[in-house]
């Protein structure tokens, strides 16, 4: 078996880690929102696509480098998410989960179809970065490396923000118990807006990174949200670090299965992992049982 050479295995591992980092960035945002307000944002992948299409527009019409446009897009989507929370999600936070699921589902339908009206169903890509880094016998494509490293940096950055800062502590307090956090003087509404803005910004950053390595169309969100759910169930719902591990695990598994069996089976791994975890440990690898 010629695939079983150390070089190739290492290459697959690195490829999987880099892809997993992007998944982790996306899934951590989704899990942050779930943790803070028990809302599953079905439009999360569409927020990612807003980032991807914004990158495409800036690159196509203004020739802007995706890494530069990220500096505009990510803060803009943060603001969008912040007010989106205030206008819409805040109304459904305290209602049954059914309500918030359906509301965000509606938002995703609206965004996908506006995307189809504006950008049509063609696949787009942003071929701004080319080439690859070569170390000895290992070659890694440059855009993938950049996307993976930026994703890790952002995820770890947000984690540090949550762990180290006073504001991050407030976010964690609200996700632990919103009512008690409110009694302790934390402005829960404000924290929710911050959390949703942060999650949206993470999704948009993932979108920028996505745009330089994959081609995408307005309907691409389905594949990604699917993987995100697998990841957050594997890692434990509401658990930020769990989503990080879950994302990287999924990336690596996909990479190996894709190489050894077939790409289609690689794509199916998200579902298989999801089913396995649901059977064995429904609360996820790092999740505590919740009522």
């Amino acid at each position, binding site marked *: 078996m010629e695939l079983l050479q150390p070089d190739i295995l290492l290459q697959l591992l690195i490829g999987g880690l880099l892809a997993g980092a992007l998944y982790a960035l996306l899934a951590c945002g989704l899990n942050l929102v779930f943790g803070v307000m028990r809302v599953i944002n079905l439009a999360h992948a569409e927020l990612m696509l807003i980032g991807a299409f914004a990158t495409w527009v800036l690159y196509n019409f203004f020739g802007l480098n995706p890494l530069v446009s990220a500096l505009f897009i990510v803060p803009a989507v943060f603001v969008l998410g912040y007010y989106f929370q205030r206008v819409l999600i805040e109304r459904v936070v305290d209602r049954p989960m059914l309500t918030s699921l359906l509301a965000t589902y509606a938002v995703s339908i609206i965004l996908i179809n506006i995307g189809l009206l504006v950008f049509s169903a063609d696949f787009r890509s942003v071929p701004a970065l080319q080439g690859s880094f070569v170390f000895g016998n290992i070659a890694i494509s440059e855009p993938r490396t950049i996307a993976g490293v930026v994703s890790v940096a952002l995820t770890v950055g947000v984690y540090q923000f949550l762990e180290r800062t006073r504001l991050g502590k407030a976010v964690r307090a609200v996700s632990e118990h919103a009512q008690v956090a409110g009694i302790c003087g934390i402005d829960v509404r404000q924290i929710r807006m911050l959390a949703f803005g942060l999650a949206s910004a993470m999704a948009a950053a993932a979108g920028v990174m996505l745009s330089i390595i994959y081609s995408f169309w307005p309907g691409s969100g389905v594949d990604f949200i699917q993987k995100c759910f697998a990841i957050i169930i594997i890692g434990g719902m509401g658990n930020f670090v769990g989503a990080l591990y879950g994302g990287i695990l999924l990336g690596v598994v996909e990479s190996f299965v894709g190489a050894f069996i077939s790409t289609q089976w690689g794509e199916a791994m998200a579902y298989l992992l999801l089913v396995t975890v*649901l059977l064995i440990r429904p609360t996820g690898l790092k999740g505590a049982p919740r009522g």
Partner: protein
Amino acid sequence: MASSGNGRPIRGIWPGALLLLLALLAPLALNQYYQSFLLQVFIAIALAQAWNLISGMTGYVSFGHAAFFGVGAYVGALFLTWGVPWWFAVFSGAAIAALLAVPLGMLTLRLRGPYFAIAMLGLNEVGRIMATLWVSVTGGGSGITLSPKLLPSLGVEYFSALVLAFGATLLVARIYRSRFGLELRAIREDEEAAEMMGVNTTLNKVIVFVLSALIPGAVGAVYAMYTTYIDPDSAFAGARNIEMIVMVLFGGSGTVWGPLIGAGLIMIMREMLWAQFPAAHLALLGVLLLVVVLYLPGGVVSLARRQRYLRPDARKSGEAPPP
């Protein structure tokens, strides 16, 4: 409590009977175009009632229910090409869709919370991809064409769709008034309390889930006969998946009449919009869904009969309404 509702006159039996009579007589007066349209409305009603069974009654949202329709369409079409009678193809579509629902339901419904919704989210998409890749059975992207020789007339298809729509509505009405229906609604309102009262929640959820997969299975097979051609994109259409949900919520989820009214209204809107602007149609459905979820959780039905629909059972059986 066990026999709650039995023996009471069924509310809405006269309008129901009148509608049924009109639908039965309609083919005499209408041309092919309107017969076709009505047939599609019946299909929509049956699908909406199926979604209503699982999601309206128990509150477990199924985001991929159209997958069972696709399975039924493929099973029906395959059986027809093998030369079985059309009614047997319809039964097979229903049976296989229901069989698939058993392990799926047992896996995802024993958990509380959003797991079910998440697991169902991609199901229709998974079905579409499988139908595309499994070329030896499904013909892949080129689909299955049914020769007209194998098929019954439009009249037979019209009446089978009518029977399915009527049957699904009747099933919802029966369940709504039964102890089983009461238990399902107890699950929706407070699953933990329901369990405490001795409701076998998982079993109930799986049973109603299988019932709600059976109907789309049969409807899919009728649809395959009606269109004479299916491919992965038409059998597992994402738009149908969305429409099923919006129809029920727009009409009134968890009620008997809501899905019927919702399906009728959405089908009329679709007939006027779909051909020209499919994306605009779906975006509009999204807006409609959002507005209903935020401002009219009970749907159109609750507008019409707000007072009587709030707690009909509690009032009639003399219980104290919840605080």
